[in-house]
């Protein structure tokens, strides 16, 4: 019996090489995408966790200010050091500096050599702290990557600059234990503090507890005693934070991979369905000869696995290659911009690989399920006489009724799903709604084909066309399958271009409002030199207007990435002049501290305009009023804007990091020259708004490049499904066509009829695909994007892209049916009619 199964599989594959190979490829594509995403991400996270561990050590607790401008007060350090469970406290100050003229910002970590030797040995030269000339004497240790990047050597002098402070000191050693790619400087904490602050405390405290103490209980106890501006967390929380950063992006990519896998399953479905139809006589014969009925089912399933297994295996190999290639070319963040500049090593693992193998085989098996069932229930004697029966005997109106009820239920459920909130920060209900829209689209295919062809049948058509229409009305299965393949692939394409176009249009408009000035000066989070700021105050500069901004960050939730704090020179009476508000804006009395939060903040923390909010600002717990919600596509994890006046009143230091500049009308060239000179002198970055805009859009386009590739793949798969099913439907009618030609229809007429049929099917598929595609696009823009990425935007259907794709698909469909018709009518009619088999 297994031998027979094997013979049949081999014969099937040999006789339909291209269909089988393409089904395998489609499965391979899905598996490889999923596996590659998994590998890259696992490697990037491992890489990041490793790097973090080598810099952070493995403390039992980390105490840090929640405001990036805050500090851990000295008194608290002493108090914690006296706690009897504490074995060691390691104070750390981390800041960002520039080295000499170089404009890149570098991490400078100030450590206490003795505690660091225990807790963070990677931050010291391998042989421990040298007796003299080391950082205790005011030297620096630099990581090998940094030395390489800057072309420096141990022993060379360096100028460390932050804002006004300059510190000239030699590089006393390197840090070979640090992971490659890590660019940082280490100095003694006292020297760092003396030059760059904070003077009243340290930046962070890392705590090692006595052996045997219960870290969690200890952290919980201290959490209650800490002053409001401080946070206590486990080292693992930091890792979780990192994983959370890219999670939504990753899940979204995985959903895309799943979609690719599903289209692969569809292709298996189309291939196997046509295979079953074409071999119905053979299977009937085998049944007569005594093949057990369940083998008719199993055989088709075997064939599904026989497609899925090599396909998945190929997918794994491809996925690995893709992962290696991607990390080399784009980096470990898959173009998402999360883990800058890391090139992680890809390590294939057995278990996930096995998982993806099973997933691929499962998808293939799923595709073979319905064809297998249809094969199982073919009535033997009848199939032997008249071939494939499309409808199972006794497809009662009862099942039709059930189907109608189910469709109505789906229609009712979709709007409910789109209103459900994210689950665990993931838009699971949104994804489910998308799946249901696609199911609905496919389920509508039979009705739509019947309507379209029924309408055609009522018109007066030339005889061959009428015969083709009649044929589809009588035996609609292949037409339905062809249409549903197009529905899914076109829906996916339309939804993707719609989502991307909506986003891009919104981003474009957003850039207009957030970049009001022609020129910007930025220093990557470092304070701008006071000299420069003073120069701008002098009369005679070529600028009419200069607006200053300072950036910081606040940690509102230890397990989430910190949110950005933007201190801006805003007109409190009219913040809308600078912030693109998406809802109402409150005018609050002057005494109240007002902040304006980004949509991500609104989404994550459930904020409303007018609500009060407690912020850990400047080491205190400060009550503020939400004055409005603005759109921000730059900071996915949220941003809070506060006016510089309010911030100063709270006692904050307005350390300017960014400038927006408006030149005097007529002196644009002078302004440009002035900025270029200052930027070069201070090692900062000057950009024109047009450049920033161009750069932003190009980053956007790059990060959606993967989607375009997937769209193309989906369209190809849909088209191929159409071609396969059309060819099969023509093949199944070879005898009928031969009869017609014996009756006097000429070949061209018959071919035209088949092309007409193909075009009508393609039209039905495209129309339904367009409708479901726009629906899916709307769910993506209105539900998935806000929930996963906290980005809101209006829907924008790019007809200039959608319609040409539709037209091209229609033409390709007609071409495919023309090809199928050619093949069927090319056989000598007499040969077909004799019907040797």
């Amino acid at each position, binding site marked *: 019996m297994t031998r027979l199964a094997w013979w049949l599989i081999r014969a099937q594959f040999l006789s339909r090489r291209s269909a089988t190979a393409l089904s395998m490829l489609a499965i391979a594509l899905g598996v490889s995408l999923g596996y590659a995403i998994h590998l890259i991400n696992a490697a990037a996270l491992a890489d990041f966790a490793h790097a973090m561990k080598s810099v952070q050590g493995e403390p039992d607790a980390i105490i840090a200010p929640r405001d990036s401008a805050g500090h851990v007060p000295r008194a608290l350090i002493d108090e914690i050091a006296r706690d009897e469970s504490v074995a060691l406290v390691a104070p750390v100050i981390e800041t960002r500096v520039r080295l000499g003229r170089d404009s890149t910002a570098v991490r400078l970590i100030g450590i206490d050599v003795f505690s660091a030797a225990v807790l963070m040995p990677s931050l010291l030269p391998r042989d421990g702290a040298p007796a003299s000339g080391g950082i205790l004497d005011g030297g620096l240790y630099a990581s090998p990557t940094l030395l390489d990047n800057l072309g420096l050597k141990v022993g060379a002098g360096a100028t460390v600059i932050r804002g006004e402070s300059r510190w000239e000191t030699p590089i006393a050693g390197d840090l070979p234990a640090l992971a490659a790619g890590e660019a940082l400087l280490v100095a003694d904490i006292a020297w760092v503090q003396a030059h760059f602050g904070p003077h009243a405390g340290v930046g962070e405290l890392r705590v090692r507890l006595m052996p045997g103490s219960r870290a969690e209980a200890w952290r919980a106890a201290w959490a209650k005693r800490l002053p409001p501006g401080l946070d206590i967390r486990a080292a693992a929380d930091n890792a979780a934070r990192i994983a959370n950063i890219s999670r939504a992006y990753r899940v979204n990519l995985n959903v895309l991979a799943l979609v690719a896998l599903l289209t692969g399953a569809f292709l298996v479905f189309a291939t196997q369905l046509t295979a079953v139809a074409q071999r119905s006589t053979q299977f009937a014969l085998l049944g007569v000869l*005594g093949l057990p009925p369940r083998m008719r089912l199993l055989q088709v399933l075997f064939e599904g696995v026989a497609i899925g297994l090599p396909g998945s295996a190929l997918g794994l190999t491809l996925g690995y290659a893709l992962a290696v290639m991607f990390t080399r070319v784009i980096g470990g963040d898959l173009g998402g911009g999360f883990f800058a500049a890391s090139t992680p090593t890809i390590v294939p693992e057995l278990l996930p690989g096995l998982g993806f193998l099973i997933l691929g085989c499962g998808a293939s098996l799923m595709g073979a399920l319905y064809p297998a069932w249809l094969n199982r229930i073919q009535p033997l004697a009848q199939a032997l006489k008249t071939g494939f029966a499309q409808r199972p005997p006794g497809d009662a109106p009862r099942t039709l009724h059930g189907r109608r009820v189910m469709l109505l239920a789906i229609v009712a459920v979709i709007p409910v799903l789109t209103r459900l909130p994210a689950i665990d920060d993931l838009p699971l209900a949104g994804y489910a709604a998308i799946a249901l829209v696609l199911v609905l689209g496919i389920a509508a295919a039979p009705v739509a084909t019947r309507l379209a062809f029924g309408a055609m049948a009522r018109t007066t058509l030339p005889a061959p066309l009428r015969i083709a229409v009649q044929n589809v009305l009588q035996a609609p299965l292949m037409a339905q399958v062809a249409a549903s393949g197009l529905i899914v692939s076109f829906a996916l394409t339309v939804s993707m271009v719609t989502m991307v176009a909506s986003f891009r249009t919104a981003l474009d408009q957003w850039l207009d409002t957030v970049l009001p000035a022609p020129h910007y000066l930025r220093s990557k989070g470092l304070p701008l030199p006071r000299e420069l700021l003073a120069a701008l105050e002098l009369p005679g500069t070529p600028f009419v207007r200069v607006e200053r901004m300072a950036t910081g960050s606040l940690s509102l939730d230890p397990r989430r990435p910190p949110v950005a704090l933007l201190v801006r020179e805003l007109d409190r009476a009219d913040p809308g002049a600078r912030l693109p508000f998406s809802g109402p804006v409150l005018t609050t009395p002057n005494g109240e501290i007002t902040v304006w939060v980004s949509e991500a903040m609104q989404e994550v923390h459930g904020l409303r305009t007018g609500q009060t909010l407690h912020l850990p600002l400047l080491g205190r717990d400060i009550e503020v009023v939400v004055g409005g919600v603005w759109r921000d596509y730059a900071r996915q994890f949220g941003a809070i804007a506060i006016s510089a006046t309010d911030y100063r009143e709270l006692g904050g230091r307005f350390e300017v990091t960014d400038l927006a500049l408006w030149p005097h009308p007529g002196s644009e060239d002078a302004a440009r020259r002035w900025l270029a000179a200052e930027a070069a002198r201070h090692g900062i970055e000057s950009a024109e708004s047009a450049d920033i805009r161009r750069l932003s859009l190009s980053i956007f386009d790059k990060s959606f490049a993967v989607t375009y590739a997937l769209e193309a793949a989906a369209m190809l798969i849909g088209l191929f499904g159409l071609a396969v099913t059309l060819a099969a439907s023509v093949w199944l009618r070879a005898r009928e066509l031969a009869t017609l030609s014996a009756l006097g229809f000429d070949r061209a007429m018959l071919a035209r009829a088949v092309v007409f049929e193909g075009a009508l099917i393609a039209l039905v598929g495209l129309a339904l695909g367009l409708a479901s595609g726009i629906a899916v696009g709307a769910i993506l823009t209105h539900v998935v994007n806000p929930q996963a990425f906290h980005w809101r935007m209006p829907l924008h259907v790019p007809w200039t892209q959608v319609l040409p794709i539709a037209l091209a698909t229609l033409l390709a469909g007609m071409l495919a049916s023309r090809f199928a018709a050619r093949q069927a009518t090319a056989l000598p009619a007499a040969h077909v009619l004799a019907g040797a088999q």
Partner: protein
Amino acid sequence: MLSVVGLGKRHSGALRPLFSELRLAVGSGEVVALVGESGVGKSTLLNCIAGLEQADSGEIRIGPDALDMHRLDETARAALRAARIGFVFQAFHVLPTLTVAQNIAVPLLLNRAPPAEHGERVESLLRRVGLAGFGPRWPALLSGGELQRVAIARALVHRPALILADEPTGNLDPRTADEVLALLLERVREQQAGALIVTHSRHVAECCDRILTLTPDGLECAHPAGPSQGGRSHHPEPHGGEPTSPPALGRGLGGRVVQ
């Protein structure tokens, strides 16, 4: 080999039954012709006997332990067919994607015969049906007569108790038809199987041991009047049909025997 008692069948939607209370038997080594007008239900009767269609009443027993085909489920019927029935069709029905030898070996695979025997049994049958050396060929390149020989070899290879043939020579020219038929009868008798052959050909019917005519009123039985080619050594007692019809009462048109 085959005994059918009280068989009745009415297609769903049909006004009157195709046949009812049908009774017939085929003995070991006996070849029975089944004739009748087109549409009278010959193929349906064969399908019922093979368990491809469900009869409405009656019993069908094939082979020594005489299981009732009716009472079996689909899987058991398939197994019974695989073990005890060989089928030959008018339209040959040879699997185009398997070689001649593989086609013939299919029943052996279905019966889980030891693979070591396959080659030998297939070869010897190929020789006996006059197709020695045709094993590795593809069916598409064979003539109709050759294809039907392949089908006959396939129907015999697993030594079934009963051969059912539905107009096996209907698609062949008269000369080839004669050859193929002679071959079929010879092999059936050699293997001591029973055979029920549906045919429209008077000549074919005359070559059989017995002729049954299916009419809308039931089965009528007659012994062929013409020179009987087979069954000389063991002329069996009439096993069935309308039991007491005397042999060779008369021959109507087209070999139809009328009482």
